[in-house]
Structure formats: C-alpha cells, structure tokens
C-alpha cells in the first residue's frame, strides 16, 4: 500500500475547506469515492476530483502535495493516522485534532491547532496568529496534544489555552500566552509585547526575557526539579527543545492584574 496522495492541481481563487479529508474519513474509500466528495470553496462546492489528483490507497498516511495557504482545516478533528503537507497550509490546520500526527513542511495561516485535543502537529515553517488558541466564538483554546513550530509564530499564541504543549523554536508575536488557562508554551526566540497578558495559569518557558508589563512580578531565580520531567518529555520530539537541561530559571508570576498564577520561566544561559 502506498500513501494516499492528494496533489493540488488548480490555483484556488477561494479558500477550500478540507476538514473531511482526514485519514478517518477516507479510510476504505476508493479514489473515485474520494473524488466525489464535495468540498466547500467560498460560497460554492467543488468536487475533490476537480481540485486534487488522487493517487495511492493508504488513507492512514495521507499526503497533500503542492499545497497552498488556500487549503483550510486540514486534519481538523482527525483521530488517527498521519498527514504530511508538502507545501503550505491554510488556516485552522489540525483544528480540534484528537490524535494522530500532522507534519506541515511549509508555513501555515492563522488558528493552527485551535481547539486541538491531542496528537502531534509539527510545522517546519512559520505559522500565523492564534496558534493553539480558541476558534472564533470558542471560550477555550488548545485542550491537549503537542505543537512544534520550527519557525516563527504570530500574535496571540495559546490565547485561552487550557492544556497541552506548544514549542516554538523561532520567535512569537505579541500577546503570547494571553488569557492562558493552563498548559505549557516554550519559545526559544524573541517575543513581542504584552507577553502573558491576562494570563491565569500555565507556564511560558522562554530563552530570552521579553519586555514585561508591570503586572508580571519577578519571583527570583530558582532551580526547579519539575523541569527535569518536562525536559525528559521533550526528548522524544525532534526539536531543539530536547537539548535543554538547565533547571535554573528566573520566575515571573502573573498576570496580577487578573489575580493570575501563571508563570514565565526564563532559562538561565
């Protein structure tokens, strides 16, 4: 069996909702059956066969080739299997994903991993705003799983994040960890303004100290044994975070404007 491959053959004018193209939904379907699936593109529907060349038959290893930022909701709510995206992905990549893995070799638009519940999402390039945040109208962001971004992330990373792990090897934009409820976000690069704005709980693990607003309080430098457990959990991922080993961190707590008990841990160099 070879990986089920969907190769984009048109230049979409409008964004295409690909949420039904998951390993779970495509399992056991023939190429003809997959081709007859209707996908919403803007205000009208297109057949999958009009958008993609379909080859291969193993839906558990789904591959999007020639992908662009017009393909939204790839891997949304998936529960098993793996998706590889050769190219870029649109908004809501892995939105509500429950299990399995997604590997995007390019960049993604906003809302990647929004409402994600489990599994592994790896983005080799950059990602847009609201990574791991809640979707529009949702009161909670990411609820579990792991996201690894090799490039940079936009604003509002982990907005209202409830659980899970986000590791960003590059930079993150403004309002990183805003309104965060729990979970862990790691950033090795620079951060924008208003980091941890209205943060309630959770952990931001940072390599560099960002400019902080006055309601983030310095609690001094400490050696925290729990970091050993956290770093051990990183070791199974292909990420620069797995090289971390210093348990020495400067701890900021806040956002006190929100009676928050969230923490920023700045790794000692």
């Amino acid at each position, binding site marked *: 069996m070879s990986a089920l491959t969907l190769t984009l053959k048109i230049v979409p004018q409008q964004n295409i909702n690909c949420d039904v193209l998951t390993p779970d939904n495509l399992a056991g379907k023939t190429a003809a059956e997959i081709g007859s699936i209707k996908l919403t593109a803007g205000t009208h529907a297109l057949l999958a066969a009009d958008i993609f060349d379909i080859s291969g038959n193993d839906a558990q290893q789904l591959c999007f080739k020639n992908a662009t930022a017009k393909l939204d909701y790839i891997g949304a709510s998936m529960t098993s299997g793996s998706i590889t995206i050769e190219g870029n992905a649109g908004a809501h990549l892995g939105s509500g994903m429950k299990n399995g893995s997604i590997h995007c070799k390019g960049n993604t638009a906003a809302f990647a991993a929004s409402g994600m519940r489990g599994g592994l999402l790896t983005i080799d390039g950059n990602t847009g705003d609201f990574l791991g945040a809640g979707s529009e109208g949702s009161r909670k962001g990411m609820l579990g799983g792991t996201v690894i971004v090799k490039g940079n992330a936009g604003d509002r990373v982990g907005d209202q994040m409830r659980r899970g792990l986000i590791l960003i090897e590059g930079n993150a934009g403004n309002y990183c960890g805003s309104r965060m409820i729990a979970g862990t976000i790691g950033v090795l690069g620079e951060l924008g303004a208003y980091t941890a704005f209205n943060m309630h*709980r959770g952990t931001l693990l940072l390599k560099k100290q960002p400019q902080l607003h006055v309601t983030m309080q310095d609690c001094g430098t400490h050696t*925290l*044994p*729990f970091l*050993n*457990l956290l770093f051990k*959990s990183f070791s199974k991922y292909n990420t620069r975070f797995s090289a971390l080993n210093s348990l020495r961190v400067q701890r900021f707590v806040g956002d006190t404007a929100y009676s928050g*008990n969230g923490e920023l841990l700045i790794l000692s160099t």
Partner: protein
Amino acid sequence: MLLNGIQIDDTFAEAFNMRGTRVIITAQNHKWAYHAANAMTGFATSVIGCGVEAGIEREMTAEETPDGRPGVSILMFAMGSKVLMQQLETRMGQCILTCPTAAAFSGIKSEDMISLGKHLRYFGDGFQTSKLIDGKRYWRIPVMDGEFLTEETTGMVRAIGGGNFLILATSQPAALAAAETAIEAMKLLPNVIMPFPGGVVRSGSKVGSKYKTMFASTNDAFCPTLKGVTNSELSPEIESVMEIVIDGLTFDDIALSMKAGIEAICALGSSSGVKRISAGNYGGKLGPHLFKLHDILKGAAI
C-alpha cells in the same frame, strides 16, 4: 527434610490478601531520600497496630527515577483500600512534604489509582501548580525550601501479606545472626518488603488470647522459656526463635523471597546454631495463601 544439616519442617506459612502500592521517593541525594523514606515507612511494622505495613524495597540510581535524582522505592500494604489510601495520604503529608528536597512519584501502574499528592496540593493555598507531562499529572507545591513536587496518583494493586518463616536456634545470638543473613539475601529481591525492625520479628503471635480484649497474643508454642508449661513446638536444645515476615506483590515474589532467605540460612550449616526452619500458620484460620516450605525449596510452588 534436611538442608545442610538444618531441619525444614513439613509445614506452611499462611498469608492473606492485602492491597499494596509502590512509591518512589527522590531527593537531592540518597541521604535525604532515605530520611524521607525511613520516616514514611516508620511505625509500619504490622497492620495490627499501625494500619499499614511498609518498608524500603530498594535504592534507585538517578538514572532510574522519574526526575533524575537519587531515590528509593517503598512498598506499602494494608488490609483494605480505604486504610491504604488514608495512611498513604497521611504519611505523604507528614513525612514527604516535610522532608527537605524530597519528591514523590508513582512506582506502580494499575487500573485502581489512588491519591498520592492529589489532596496535598491544598497545602499550596492557591499557589499550587499542576503540570500534565506525558499523560501524568504532577503537583508543584511552593514550600520554604523551594517546590515540593509530587505525582497526583499512584497505582493500587492486589497483594499478599504475611508470608513468613521461623528460625529456631540454640541461642539468641545464633538465631539473630541467621536472620540477618537471610534478610541480606532477601533484600536483593524486588517486589517484597520485610516490614519489622531490621526485617526480623521476635514476637510472633497466635490468633486469640485468654483476655477478651486481645485478638492476638504471644505464640507460646514457640516461646523457649515456656517449653515446660505449654504445648511447645520446641525441642530441648532450642533457646531462641526469630521470625521473618514478608509482604509482596504476588505469591511468587514472596515464595522466591522465602526460598532465598531459607537457603541463605541453610548455607551457614547447623554449626551456626540454627537447627530448624519452621513457619507460622494458624490452621487455615487466617488466610487463603499457603506457602509450603518443602514445595518452595524444591521450586515447585514458584
């Protein structure tokens, strides 16, 4: 049955069902891990008066423990799940939370998970932090030496308590020396503890008493100073009897441990002063598990 000149009685140890758990205690170094573990397993020799029977199972290297620090694993057994849960929480709160640098982790998986630090978190008065790492929930509780780290739950398994054997010798020093030899051999085995002081108990008991308030009393049949006035099990040359009690996770764990202990004693030979090995049983009144000494030594029961 004679083993190196020492008589092995054709009898059996009688053991009963218990609930057990394992906790891994780590600290800055082994010294403080032992301080914590010794406190946690202190006053835990017998369920008769302590609620639980607990002991240190083994030392663990930094590479073996969850948080990469030196540690020890302890086993704790009780007659029922309710007592075990209550005792575990109490001992965690008074012995591990209080001990400098100590942390506690689950040492056993089970479908039945019981609270390890789940309720201790309230000591944090709102400053406690939970982290879910690789599917396991941990609590970080701010304390004066930094942070107390504990896993939220540990597994509770069905276990067996009360495996035992008796060492009958011509003198008290000889009986104790043989018991120490046995304990050293038995400590090398996993999944068992010998909960009494130094692993040895000198006050073996029988079920019942002439006094109405007592449900256990001295095992007069094995008391050397009563040889002439009671229905004694002891021959004239026996002057002292020591008992080793074993609690373990499974029947085989206890049987292997008894085998190792008895064989270590028999290796000393009868010139050591040890003349007989027997076992404590209560005619089937106490428990369903029978550890027959002859079968264990032949390897048949394991």
